[in-house]
C-alpha cells in the first residue's frame, strides 16, 4: 500500500473560462470547479476571458481581465487569477498589471501569442512583474506545422529568461514539442515547465523530472479546452517518485506563489475547503 494520503492536494496552474458551459464568468468557473472537484483539484489558476483574441486591444485586455476578476471574486477560496497582457501595448499592459495584480487580487501574468517573447517589448512588463513577484506564464509551442506569427518557441522564452534572472517564468505546454522544449529551457534555472495542452503522451513527465528536476515541473490542465483528466493522468500515471508527484501537483506552485500570496494575505497552507459547496 502506498504511503500517499487519500487526499493529495492539487493546484492547477493553467485553466480558462472557455470551453466550459455557462453564460457568465461566474457560471463557467462554477462548472469548472465542479469538474475539478471530481478529480480532487482544489485550486485553479484562471486566465483570459470568455472569448479569446490573438492580439487583443487594450480595451479587450481589460474586458478579458474583468471576466477573470468577476469569476475569481466569486470563488476566492478556489481560484487565482493571472492577468492577460499584450506586449504590443506596453503601457496598457503595465496599467493592467498594476490594476489586476498590484492593486487587485491576481497573482501572475499570462502572455499568449500576440508577440514573440524574445522581443524587447516584454522587458518593462517582465521587470514590473518581477517587482510584484508575479510569475509569468508564457505560452510556448514549437510546431512542425508552423507557429502563428507572434507565437513563441521555448527557445524564445529561454532568451527572455536569461535577460531577466530575477523573474520567474513558466514555459507553457513544455514547449508543445516537449522533447525539444524541455532541452530548450534546461539551462535556465528561473524557468519551470508546465505540462498542459498536449496529448497525454507517455514520457513527458519522466523526461521533465529527469532533465530539470521535479522542482521545476508544474501541473496544468488547460481546461476547459482539455479535460482535467487527460492532463492529470500525465502526472498520476508517470513513473516518477511520489515525492516528485507531490511537488508537481502542488508543492512547486505553492512555493512559486508563496511570496505574492503572502503579500496579499492569502494562506498558502493546505486548503480546508476541499469540497465545493
Amino acid at each position, binding site marked *: 500500500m502506498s504511503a500517499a*494520503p487519500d487526499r493529495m492536494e492539487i493546484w492547477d496552474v493553467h485553466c480558462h473560462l472557455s470551453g466550459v458551459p455557462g453564460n457568465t464568468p461566474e457560471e463557467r468557473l462554477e462548472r469548472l470547479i465542479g469538474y475539478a472537484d471530481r478529480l480532487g483539484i482544489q485550486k485553479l489558476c484562471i486566465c483570459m476571458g470568455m472569448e479569446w483574441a490573438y492580439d487583443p486591444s487594450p480595451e479587450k485586455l481589460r474586458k478579458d481581465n474583468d471576466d477573470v476578476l468577476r469569476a475569481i471574486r466569486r470563488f476566492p477560496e478556489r481560484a487565482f487569477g493571472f492577468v492577460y497582457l499584450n506586449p504590443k501595448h506596453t503601457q496598457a499592459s503595465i496599467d493592467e498589471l498594476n490594476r489586476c495584480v498590484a492593486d487587485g487580487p491576481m497573482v501572475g501574468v499570462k502572455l499568449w501569442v500576440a508577440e514573440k517573447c524574445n522581443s524587447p517589448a516584454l522587458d518593462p512588463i517582465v521587470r514590473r512583474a518581477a517587482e510584484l513577484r508575479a510569475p509569468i506564464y508564457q505560452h510556448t509551442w514549437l510546431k512542425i*506545422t508552423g507557429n502563428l506569427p507572434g507565437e513563441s518557441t521555448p527557445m524564445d522564452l529561454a532568451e527572455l529568461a536569461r535577460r531577466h534572472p530575477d523573474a520567474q517564468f513558466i514555459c507553457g505546454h513544455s514547449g508543445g514539442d516537449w522533447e525539444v522544449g524541455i532541452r530548450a529551457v534546461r539551462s535556465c534555472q528561473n524557468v519551470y515547465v508546465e505540462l498542459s495542452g498536449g496529448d497525454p503522451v507517455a514520457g513527458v513527465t519522466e523526461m521533465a523530472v529527469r532533465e530539470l528536476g521535479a522542482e521545476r515541473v508544474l501541473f496544468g490542465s488547460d481546461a476547459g479546452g482539455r479535460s482535467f483528466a487527460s492532463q492529470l493522468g500525465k502526472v498520476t*500515471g508517470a513513473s516518477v517518485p511520489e515525492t516528485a508527484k507531490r511537488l508537481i501537483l502542488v508543492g512547486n506552485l505553492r512555493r512559486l506563489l508563496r511570496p505574492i500570496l503572502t503579500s496579499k494575505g492569502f494562506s498558502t497552507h493546505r486548503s480546508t475547503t476541499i469540497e465545493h459547496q
Partner: protein
Amino acid sequence: MKAPRQQARVHGPETKDQRPRALRWEHAPGNKLGDPKHCIARRDFFRFASGLAVLVGVRSGLSVSSADSSHRPGALVDVNVSISHWPTRRVEFDEAPELAKLLRSRGVSQAWVGSLDGMLHKDIAAANARLARACAQNGRGLLLPFGTINPVLPDWREELRRCAEAHRMHGIRLYPNYHGYKLDDPASASLLRAAAERGLIVQIALAMEDERMMHPLMRVAPVDPTPLVRLVREIQGIRLVLINALRLVRGEPLGQLIRSGEVYVEISTLDGVGCVERLVTEIPVERVLFGSNAPLFYFESAALKLRESSLSPTQLAALCAGNAIRLMPRGVGRGSRTP
C-alpha cells in the same frame, strides 16, 4: 483499507439493477452460452462494480499512487493498446510482458492489441506473427491481438487469411495514412468487404500522433473518415472501430458515421472538460468504447476521464465493457470459414 467498503455501499444498488442487462448481453443472438468466453464475460460482469469503482475512484480523494487500483480486476475492456516500438521514441511498457502487467494493475480485463511494427514494417507477416505470439504468451488471455493489414501490399488477402485462420484473431487494425491509401480508394472497399466476410472487427486508426509534433521526416496527415459512410452502408456485416478519432471527427460528420451502421469510437483522444458526458449526449453511449492508447499515452488519462464526467452506472457499464463484449465476435478466427 476502508475504500472497498465505501465503494460497495455506493455502487451496491446499481449493480443489482444492472444484472438483467448483463444477462441480455449473454443471451444476445449468436452468443454461445457454452463458450468459455461467455463464462469469462459473466464472471467479469459480476466483478465489474468493484473494479469500476476503483477505476473511477468513488473515494472523493485522489491518490497519486497506482497501488490503490492494483490486483482488483473488473470488467474493463481497453480497445486501443499497442505493443512494440514507436519509431521516434522508446516508451515504457512497450513490450507485451510489461504492458500486460500495467493493464492488469489498472483493472483491465481485456485489451485489443495492435503492433506498432504494422505501421512502417513491410514484412507485416512477421509483425503479425510476433504480435500473436506475444499476446498468447503474456497476460493469460488478457491481450487479444489485432493484426495489421496493408491493402497496398501484394497478396494482402493471404495476410488476412493468416490473421483469421492461423492466428485466430478477432479483428484487424488499419493505418491508412501510414500505408499511403485513402478510404475511397478501391483497396479500402476490398479489404473492408473481405474482413466483414470473415467476421473480423476492423479498427481504423485515424491518426497516431498530433500533427504539430511529428518528426520532420515522418509527417503524416490524418485519415479522412468521410468515405466510410458510404462503405459501411454498402458492406453487409461490417463492424468498425475508429481509434484515435475524436479530435478529428465530431458533430454532424461523426453522427453520420455512427448512423451509417455498426461504427464505434473510443475515448483516448477525446478531450475537453467533462468530455465523456458531453460525447454521450451527441452519440449513443452504445457506440462508445473505452480506449487508452497505452502505452503511447498514459493509461491514467483515459481512466480519469470516466471519473471527471458524470455518467450513470448503466452508461459506465456499457462504455467500459458491455459494448465491447457485445461487439466481440464469437466463433471467428477458428478456421471455420474459408474465403
